[in-house]
């Protein structure tokens, strides 16, 4: 009843091509934004913001990045954690070595450096495909871990190899409290989501999808494969770099190469599989799922056993649940939660009639 588009007439091509052609979707988005900007800061506790919302939003940006590469352009990457690490370390070095650089420039610069690394890693993608490319991105993962673990230059010569991030300020306003961090990350989420959504609707996004569906055929109809694949790598790593920088600066407030290991790469991959490949909404659903699931498991384990369960066992159960869910989703709903949402919307349009 509520979700029905009767009475909404599109009288121009522009209206037909809008991001949200159906009015209810637009209202939904506006409501979400109001909740995020007004209600959450007013009512959410510190624990809520730091424990759930910050990681959720940062992982969403990372997931959008990987989804562009894997979900839209069809290039499987197991090295997303490496690009996040590059972003985090670049942001640190930009902020420390160029003290006058504005904060936004630091983050965008970190994204650009990560994008450059992405292009380098993606450059074999024209020649090698599928698993071979996945293994190549895996090489980037191990190489980045080694580089950041071996050369103290990246952490300004600190002996411990783990360093605190410098203080941030935006247009003279110091970003200190959790709420400040929340707004900073929220700003990045909104901008990157809008950017990603529009990229995948535009010419370049269509080229990515053509390459994903069949790269030889795409080449035949005049899509430049090299440019298309490398642009996907660049945009994807740009997002990952920003996510990595935000992760280091706003969430854990330190730069540490062990925070971006292979598990991180796989975690982001899980997000897009569960959330839905080739869907921007899916990135958010997947990120929320992966952030909340361990917490839920923890709570459930404590309730069921009365609190005397070892953390090791919970970690193992978490791994089993993740693994099992991945297989389950791939079998039952390869397009993830986003497709379930779409199906639900289709049903709502007709409700209460069956056809």
């Amino acid at each position, binding site marked *: 009843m509520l979700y029905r588009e009767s009475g909404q007439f599109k009288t121009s091509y522009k209206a037909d091509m809008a991001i949200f052609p159906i009015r209810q979707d637009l209202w939904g988005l506006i409501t979400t934004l109001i909740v995020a900007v007004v209600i959450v800061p007013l009512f959410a506790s510190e624990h809520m913001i730091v424990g759930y919302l910050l990681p959720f939003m940062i992982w969403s940006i990372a997931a959008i990045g990987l989804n562009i590469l894997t979900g839209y352009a*069809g290039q*499987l990457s197991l090295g997303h954690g490496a690009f996040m690490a590059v972003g985090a370390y670049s942001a640190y070095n930009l902020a420390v070595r160029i003290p006058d650089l504005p904060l936004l420039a630091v983050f965008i610069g970190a994204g650009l450096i990560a994008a450059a690394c992405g292009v380098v890693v993606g450059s*074999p993608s024209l*020649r*090698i*495909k*599928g*698993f*071979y490319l*996945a*293994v*190549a991105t*895996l*090489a980037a993962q*191990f*190489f980045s*871990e*080694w580089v950041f*673990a*071996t*050369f103290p230059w990246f952490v300004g010569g600190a002996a411990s190899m783990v360093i605190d991030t410098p203080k941030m300020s935006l247009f003279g306003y110091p970003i200190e409290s959790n709420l400040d961090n929340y707004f900073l990350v929220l700003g990045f989420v909104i901008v990157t989501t809008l950017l990603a959504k529009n990229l995948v609707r535009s010419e370049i996004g269509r080229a990515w999808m053509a390459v994903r569906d*069949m790269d*030889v*055929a795409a080449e*035949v109809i005049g899509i430049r494969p090299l440019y298309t694949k490398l642009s996907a790598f660049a945009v994807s790593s740009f997002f990952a770099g920003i996510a990595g920088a935000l992760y280091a600066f706003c969430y854990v407030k330190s730069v540490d190469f062990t925070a971006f290991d*292979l598990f991180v790469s*796989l975690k982001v*991959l*899980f997000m897009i*599989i569960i959330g839905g490949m080739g869907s921007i909404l899916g990135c958010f659903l997947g990120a929320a799922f992966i952030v909340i699931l361990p917490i839920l498991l923890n709570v459930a384990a404590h309730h069921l056993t009365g609190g005397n369960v070892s953390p*090791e*066992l919970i*970690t*193992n*159960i*978490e*791994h*089993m*649940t*993740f*693994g*099992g*869910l*991945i*297989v389950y989703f*791939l*079998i039952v709903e*390869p397009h993830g939660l986003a497709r379930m949402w779409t199906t639900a919307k289709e049903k709502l349009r007709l409700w209460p009639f069956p056809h």
Partner: protein
Amino acid sequence: MPEELAWFLEVLIAGLLSGVMYSLVALGFVLIFKASGVFNFAQGAMVLFAALTFARFLEMGINFWFAAAITLFIMVVLAVIIERVMLRPLVAQPVIILFMATIGLNYFLEGLAQGVWDTQVHALDLGIEDVPWQSVMDATNILISLFDVWAAVICGALVVMLAYFFQKGRIGRALRAVADDNQAAMSVGIPLQLIWAIVWAAAGLVALVAGALWGQRLGVQFSISLVALKALPVLILGGFNSIAGAIIGGLIIGAAEKLAEVYLGPIIGGGIEAWFAYLIAMLFLMVRPQGLFGEKIIERV
């Protein structure tokens, strides 16, 4: 023999012998890839699972061969379950989907292995001592670990056995038919599901042997599953669907890795073992994208 040359040979031989162990893990990948076109990311977790199960049975005081038999039986059951629960519903899906499913399987098996047993480090003693080979040591002044030699012999025997199994007999022919074309094999009446279960069980056997050998070397613990990541460059180098490629690739990677660690490592900071193998494999891919012995990929629209 001059000191320099002896040292070089020592490193080279140690590298080649450890390369054989990489080949063994790579073989597990190749078996499954040949028969079902699945790149099994969970091979490392299978190695961990097998080694942990084996080590814990031995700790319980069960006879060595009996423990090995039980573990092998468990791996076969696991293979059947994987085929039944995961592969069968995913048949005819794009290979990349299957690959991601095995990443999920990897996590599941890791959690299962460590949840059922535990996350401690377990010693595993196969009764082969890790001592230098004395007679070679006396004659040429080159230090070769006897354990490495034994491991290489066992791997070699296993490879010959599997190669024979794959080439001869009814099942061997069926395996090759399935490897060549799933659908055509099915249409002439080859039971695809049975073949897949057999192949995964064979990969389980390989995982058990690899797990036992690596387990004595490193101790049975989580990090043993990372050995599989070492085997990936071997696969790339050798080609995904060639048993010979897995062996030769393993030898090349093993030797190159050790030589690089010794001669190149000190110059650029050490610890390069983690990625050097990947670098070799990548450079090689640029020249020959299908690997050393891989089948040439022909793409059609």
